[in-house]
Structures are given as C-alpha cells and as structure tokens.
C-alpha cells in the first residue's frame, strides 16, 4: 500500500468512525427524543473501533428478562449497575424518574412472583450461593438481601434487625441497597434462572407481572 493509499485509508477510517458515533448519539442535538435505550458499553480492553453495544428498550415488558439474558451470556454482572446509572443520568428528570420506577417495579414483580409461587428458601439460597461462587460476594450479598422480597425468612429477619423495624418497606430496602437495589434484583433473577430455571431465561417469563 502506497503512502497516499495509507493516508486515504486512515482518513476514511476516521470519517467512518466519527460518522457512526455522531449518528448513534444524534439525540444530543435535541432534534429528536432521547432513546430509552441503554448506552454503549465500552470495552476498554478492545483496541478496535467496533464497540460492543447493547440495545435494550428499557420500557419494554421483558426488559428484565433481556437483562438477565445479557448478564448470563456476557458474564458482565455490572451491566444492571451501568443501566440504572445511565437512567439516572438522563437529562429529562421526569423521564429518568419514570423509567427508573418502571424498571424497579418490573424487577420487584418477579421477586414477588417467586414468593407467591412458593419459591423455597433452599431454592433462593441455591441461587445466591451460585452467584457467590461464580461472581463473588459483591453481587451475592445484595442478591441475598433482596431475597427478602421473594420471601426468604432469613433475609427478612436480618433486614428487620439491621434496620430496626418490624416490617421492612420497599423504600427502606431501596435506601438500604442504594444504587444496587435494582441490580440486586436482576442478579437474584439471574441466579434463579441458572439454578431453578436450568439456565433458560424463558423460565423467568412465567414470573413476569404484566401491567407494571
């Protein structure tokens, strides 16, 4: 390749990359609504321009199932954290609040459904242990805490002791876990899919509560 051809190739690569980036983030120009989708997740170790992008409709009924699938497939357990962080960074506060509340409501629905369908403490323990063995206490701990919503008596007891209240409300649980509240629910769902659902995310669908 001659020097001129090389310069042309570099120039084309720059223009293509910038055009792709500008087009992907065109909502920044305020000419169109900001998409309610997760932003690109940069893989810093990848030197190529091919960014790993995840396009999830955060307002879809099956958002949580998509997220669980993504977490299990990619083994990137921080994805739910990135997503909730991105939602909080949406310029439109009203939209951020609405989407954040929707995500939490939908994730809570799965855990309530676990409880109502009779998930046993042993099943919930197995899910939390599976998370702990594979991905550490950083993720298993919060998942164990939100197991209280799925009816785990030990989790409920520990929470009431820690918070010093007879019955822990959803708000208190959210405050207790902070930014990990929503991720913890996705992690527990992932653990349940892996252990009770045989690794098939379709198993989770039976616990989806419509209308949230």
């Amino acid at each position: 390749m001659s020097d001129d051809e090389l310069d042309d190739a570099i120039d084309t690569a720059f223009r293509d990359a910038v055009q792709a980036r500008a087009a992907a983030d065109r909502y920044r120009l305020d000419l169109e609504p900001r998409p309610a989708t997760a932003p690109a997740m940069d893989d810093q170790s990848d030197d190529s321009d091919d960014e790993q992008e995840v396009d999830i409709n955060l307002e879809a009924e099956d958002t949580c199932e998509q997220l669980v699938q993504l977490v299990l497939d990619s083994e990137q357990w921080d994805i739910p954290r990135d997503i909730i962080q991105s939602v909080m960074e949406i310029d439109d506060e009203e939209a951020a609040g609405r989407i954040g509340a929707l995500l939490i409501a939908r994730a809570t629905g799965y855990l309530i459904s676990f409880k109502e369908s009779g998930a046993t403490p042993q099943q919930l323990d197995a899910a939390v242990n599976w998370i702990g063995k594979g991905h550490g206490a950083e993720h298993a701990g919060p998942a164990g805490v939100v197991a209280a919503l799925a009816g785990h008596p030990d989790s409920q007891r520990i929470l009431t002791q820690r918070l010093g209240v007879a019955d822990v409300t959803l708000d208190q649980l959210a405050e207790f876990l902070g930014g990990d509240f929503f991720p913890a629910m996705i992690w527990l769902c992932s653990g349940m899919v892996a252990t009770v659902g045989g690794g098939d995310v379709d198993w989770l669908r039976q616990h989806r509560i419509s209308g949230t």
Partner: protein
Amino acid sequence: MEHIRRPNLPDEHGSLIVSYDPVQERAHRVGRCLHRAADTDLTAAVIGDVEVELDAVQHAELGDLSGRSVQAVQLTRQAASPVQVAAADQMLASDPLGSDELFLQLDPTSACVAAAHWLQAAAEVVARRSGIAVTNVVIESDNIEALPHATPTAVLELMDEGMSPTDAVTSLIRDAMAVAEGEIPDVDDLRDRIEEAEENAERYGQGDPDAVAELMKIRLTPLDPRRPARDMLEDLLSGIRGCWLLFQEYADIPQ
C-alpha cells in the same frame, strides 16, 4: 412601515416628536426624507425594499436563510434554530471536517451546535483509540499542529459535565456577548482565575516581569466578543481537525 409612510413632521412651531425607540425613530427619519423628496415612485420603491428586508428578517428568525435572509450568517444570535442545526448536521455528516458552506449558508450559532456535537463524536473516537481523555484530545493535537484549542476544549469540558451541545454553545456565546457589552459574565469564575493566575505568577514568574505579565493575562471569554459565533465555529472545526490529526498519529498501520 407606517412610520415611513406617515412620519412625525415638525409642527407649525417647529417642534418635532421624537420616538424613544431607535428603530421607530430611524423609520421616521427615512419617512421625513421621502416627504421632502415628494416623489411617489421613490417612496413606493423604498417601502417595497424595506418590506422585502423585513420579510427576510422574519424568514431568518424561522431558520430559513435563503435569498436575502442569508445576511444573518454574519450575525450572532444567542439561540439556535432547530432547522439550521439539522441542516448543519447534514453538512457535517457529508464531511465531518466541515466545509465553507457552514459559514456561507447557515446561522453560525446553530452551525456551532452541530459542530459541537461532531467535535464530541470525533473526540470520543480519538480518545478511545489513543487513551487520552476526551477533554484533552484537542490540547494534545496542538502538539502536532498549532490550533486554537481553548474554545473546543471549553466546549468539550462543558459537554463532559453533562451539558447538551446547545447549552454548551449558547452559554459560551452568551458570555462573550456579555463581555462585548462590557459586563463580566461570571464574577466568581473570574475571581478564581485571578487567584490561580497570581499563584502561577508567584510560583513560576519570580524575577521575570515579562513572565509575570504573561501569566497574569486573563481572558474574559475564549471567543472574539465582536463575532463570537463565527469565531466559535472556526475553532470547533479546528478542534475536529485536531482530532483527525491525533487519529492519524495513533492509527494502526495496515500490513
């Protein structure tokens, strides 16, 4: 238009009513000139031309810079027109390094908004390739080729803090327009910069009056207050070019 047709004229005592509104008073003056000329054809021609001019202003306000409205490219407006932003975005999509059309056909503030968006995209691409922070890429490219890095870096920093391109561009232009009016846009910021300059002068300028004078230079705005929007557009396009230069430096050489 009514003032041109029927201007205030001196009464029998030689008194003349003068409007406090300078635009209206200028219209009265034109009207008085035409009254003195007493030429119906001339009056009709002037009124016709003023109507065309006012129509052009209205079109420019709506973002249509066709025909006579193109004069607006020389002006700086605080607000951006979505129509013009979209047109500038389209031009940059054709050529991310920018073209003369941006200066000749569009309202410069709106063109700046689109250019800021494309600068951000270019800076992100280069940052990813080079490992240099997004807000530092233009400064870094200044080591390859001298370019005005202050404005593009200021815009990148504002957008990095979460501002939209529109807010980043219009806030800097608003500040520059305030400076042009003799105002200090942000007293607290100026106070901080004076303190910083004094510290630098004390640290690095001891015994060297020239160095102290240089270190104590503080600009109230990175833009040219006489033509802030066009100045910013030039700088933002230079910033995109800086990203292009840096991209070349870090480009992998194909085998």
